[in-house]
């Protein structure tokens, strides 16, 4: 990590978005006190995670990227264990387990060993387990990685339900852009241990103008970018990924841009105009080679 700063409001769903190795899980590790920061300060619901780690852990729960379960134990035992360690009163815990099992469609599985669960069932159990203690902060560390599309869609529904109907603050790490866009109130895009952008998905997209031209250059990419700058179509925020050039349009319409590109004689093997997406923001900040004005 290279020093990051962010605040998350109560009830907010905050996304940490970035490629593998960007520092998302390290951030979660520090906030959940399983990674010791070398410097800096982090507070969780007012508790300093270094000075009062147990208090910080008492108000939070984590759903991990990979399965963190005892395969031989039943689903009910997992939920009960969490309730006991987080000191939930016994009767309250029993009622809560029934509620969560019903809400997350685990009622028929809850007494079976977790080793017999499918990937989606196990992940739902892990979410239920995290919710047994009614956490004020819920960490979801890449919760849908490795799941098939149907199970992933189911889980997004569950998390979406939490977002819409609870006051729990959720910190979600992901490298799935659609997931971040759908669930998060605000997103921090991380790259090489730093936050390179932080705003709502709408505001992040708005930085790339009303439309974006995506063209695949036949000739040298840098020469093509230079031509785009010369014609006044591209500003400093144009960027490239391989042979593809992305040109955010701030002052031109899509039709004007296409006409200008054709008139400038820039040879392409494909060209489209469309609205900017979070993918474009993400690519520009983390994956794309920022195009310097030629």
């Amino acid at each position: 990590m290279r020093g990051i700063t962010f605040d998350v409001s109560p009830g907010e769903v905050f996304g940490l978005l970035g490629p593998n190795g960007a520092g998302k899980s390290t951030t979660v590790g520090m906030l959940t006190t399983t990674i010791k920061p070398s410097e800096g300060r982090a507070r969780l619901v007012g508790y300093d995670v270094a000075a009062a780690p147990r208090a910080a852990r008492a108000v939070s729960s984590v759903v991990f990227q990979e399965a963190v379960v005892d395969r031989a134990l039943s689903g009910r035992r997992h939920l009960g264990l969490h309730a006991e360690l987080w000191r939930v009163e016994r009767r309250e815990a029993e009622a809560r387990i029934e509620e969560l099992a019903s809400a997350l469609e685990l009622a028929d599985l809850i007494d079976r060993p977790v080793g017999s669960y499918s990937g989606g069932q196990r992940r739902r159990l892990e979410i239920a387990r995290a919710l047994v203690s009614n956490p004020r902060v819920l960490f979801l560390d890449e919760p849908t990685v490795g799941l098939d599309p149907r199970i992933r869609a189911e889980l997004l529904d569950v998390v979406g339900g939490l977002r819409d109907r609870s006051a729990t603050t959720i910190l979600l790490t992901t490298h799935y852009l659609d997931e971040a866009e759908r669930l998060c109130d605000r997103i921090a895009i991380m790259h090489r241990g730093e936050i390179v952008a932080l705003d709502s998905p709408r505001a992040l997209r708005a930085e790339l103008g009303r439309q974006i031209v995506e063209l695949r250059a036949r000739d040298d990419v840098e020469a093509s970018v230079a031509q785009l700058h010369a014609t006044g179509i591209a500003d400093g925020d144009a960027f490239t990924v391989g042979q593809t050039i992305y040109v955010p349009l701030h002052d031109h319409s899509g039709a004007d841009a296409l006409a200008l590109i054709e008139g400038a004689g820039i040879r392409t093997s494909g060209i489209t105009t469309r609205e900017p997406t979070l993918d474009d923001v993400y690519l520009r900040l983390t994956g794309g080679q920022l195009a310097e004005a030629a």
Partner: protein
Amino acid sequence: MTAATTELVRPLAARAHNPFGPVLTLARRRFQLTARTPRELVVPLLTPILFALVIAPSLKTALDTTSAYESFVATGTIGLLIPLNTMFAGIGVLVDREAGAQRELLTAPISRALLVVANLLVAFAITALQVAVLLVAARARGIHFDITAGGFLWFLAAGSLFTVGMYGTAEVLAARVPSTEEYVGRVPAIAIVPWFLAGSLFPINALPGFLTWFARFLPLTHGLALVRFGLLHDSSSLHNIWKMQNASAMAGLSLAVVAAFALLLTAAGIRAFGRHAVH
């Protein structure tokens, strides 16, 4: 799949604080996992039972020794059973880390030392049960013990402290090795080699001189000498270590050695676990 309901998150009543609650919860979990792995219960018992019930009587016959030798070896096998069982218990720590719920437990609002303590409690209980089985089986085979109330207390103290120390060793090793395979590969060097040098099958003064000196520094040598003092009313093993005449004084010194071993290795085990858990 339906979406979550409005009842997914709401305030809950907190349970009254019970300082022993978390450790009992963790110990129950460990016991449930262990009980589902009969291997951990049975395998450590096989070799000592074989030594006590088959090899010791066979050696007695082959070497034409007295029945005291059977008792000597039967008590000596306790020094194999405790290290084997505690080291096998340590595998559970690796399984927790590699394929279990250890990460979830690390985010619980409890002291992480309790995870080690809870595992120790279960390892201790199972070891105690196995030692009892070994002694009952040996007695049923006709092997003689000379147990008094005082002697039993010496045996109990020595066995308990040595078990605690060996489990600390298991935690240290589990924290330091990256995989179960490497852990299992190192178990013989820790659990079996010292047993041959600690006066289990023959008195330590039968070893070459430098090995006799070396054996005096092994906690197992002191533990076994105390076990024999307690169960056989035989202080010769203590004398071979300390060269003193007062049996109680020698036993006290050996117990101090085993207690120091237990204290140091438990502290080291907790520290190693904590350092590995938080990086």
